[in-house]
């Protein structure tokens, strides 16, 4: 298994702050997002790599674990995974390295981590059902909105008389899937013993981070950057959505931190309707300013009766 240098993938130093990580991820994700990349195949691969890196480094606990792991890792070293995998996945959108060390929420309950391999059975001798197998599946927001088909490969090592085999699945990702939702493939887990039924395969949906949006249930949130005069005078801004660029009216006198809503352009809800997009305004101060601009601001300061504070 190859060590993945997540800091290098994001182009940041090992001491990068969470804000610097976010900035680096968004900058690179805008270039390599499959919807905008010139080379779709290379762009998709790079976007997955960026997502994986940000998934680990944006979580302080996972980042600490990763840093400890990196400190012990020798260059060119091929490490054995922390436990013998019962199955190996490809096509989930995550590397083997991630699957081995960071999948499943960093050590949370996983059905395949059954220590004595008795699965869900009551333990009676020699007949018991196979264990369930769980894997994370990276899904982009567009795939979550419209649905998609993903090719997934599982390699099961030979054990207890069963021949090693590789299974390929065309998994349909239904439109409207959410973060953490599970897709079940019946009977595709580990084989049962003594004629008992095999376990199931559960694919847990992990929504890929988007350069522009953060997801809250079916709603999408983004930032809308404004110049001070745009906030005062109002503007018709074009903002990206999953359905393409849309025009959003920013009313005159908009405060920084206001939330503007684009109705029905979010992800799908359970009832089939769509969530909304919320654009939060951020007013930026122009820097540097020319002498002419400085004079105009000075003129405005003299003319204006606006008092943002009591002592102003």
């Amino acid at each position, binding site marked *: 298994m190859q060590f993945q240098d997540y800091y290098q993938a994001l182009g940041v130093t090992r001491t990068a702050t969470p804000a610097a990580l976010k900035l680096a991820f968004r900058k690179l994700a805008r270039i390599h997002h499959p919807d905008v990349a010139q080379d779709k195949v290379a762009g998709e691969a790079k976007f997955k790599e960026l997502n994986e890196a940000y998934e680990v480094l944006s979580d302080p606990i996972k980042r600490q674990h990763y840093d400890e792991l990196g400190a012990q890792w020798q260059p060119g070293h091929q490490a054995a995974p922390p436990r013998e995998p019962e199955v190996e996945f490809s096509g989930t959108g995550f590397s083997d390295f991630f699957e081995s060390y960071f999948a499943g929420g960093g050590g949370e309950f996983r059905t395949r981590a059954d220590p004595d391999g008795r699965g*869900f059975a009551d333990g009676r001798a020699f007949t018991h*059902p196979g264990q369930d197998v769980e894997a994370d599946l990276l899904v982009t927001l567009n795939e979550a909105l419209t649905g998609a088909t993903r090719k997934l490969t599982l390699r099961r090592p030979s054990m207890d008389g069963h021949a090693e085999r590789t*299974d390929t699945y065309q998994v349909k990702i239904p439109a409207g899937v959410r973060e953490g939702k599970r897709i079940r493939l*019946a*009977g595709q887990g580990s084989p049962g013993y003594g004629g008992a039924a095999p376990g*199931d395969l559960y694919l847990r949906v992990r929504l890929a981070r988007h350069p522009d949006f953060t997801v809250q249930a079916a709603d999408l949130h983004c930032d809308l950057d404004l110049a001070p005069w745009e906030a005062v005078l109002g503007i018709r801004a074009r903002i990206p959505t999953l359905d393409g660029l849309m025009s959003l009216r920013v009313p005159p006198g908009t405060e920084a931190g206001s939330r503007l809503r684009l109705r029905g352009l979010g992800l799908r809800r359970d009832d089939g309707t769509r969530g909304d997009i919320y654009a939060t305004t951020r007013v930026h101060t122009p820097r540097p300013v020319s002498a002419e601009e400085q004079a105009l601001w000075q003129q405005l300061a003299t003319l204006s009766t606006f008092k943002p504070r009591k002592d102003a």
Partner: protein
Amino acid sequence: MKETASNSRYALILISREEAAPAVHPLEEAARIAGMHPARLRHYCRLGIFGPALADPAREPAFDDDQLYELRRFEHFRQRMRLHPAALRLLCELWRKVEHLEAELRFFRDR
């Protein structure tokens, strides 16, 4: 659709999502998949541990893949660890809360 490539080194099975499992399962089927008696599952639903409460006895709840996963996990702990249903109920509530909080945390970290 299912294909097997007999000349390859490994058996190659192509299987479609629809063939693998329907998305929603009636109570009896969900109970069978989870390895519990339907009466037990009905009882848990009445207690509010799974699915909507049975306010109308004529209508039985249906279970999606997520709920099936929970059911199987629940039954695993009940049979293997001999956990009391009251303890399992608490465990289920905590699992759901943790998943909800993880989603919230992810959202606020990204903002």
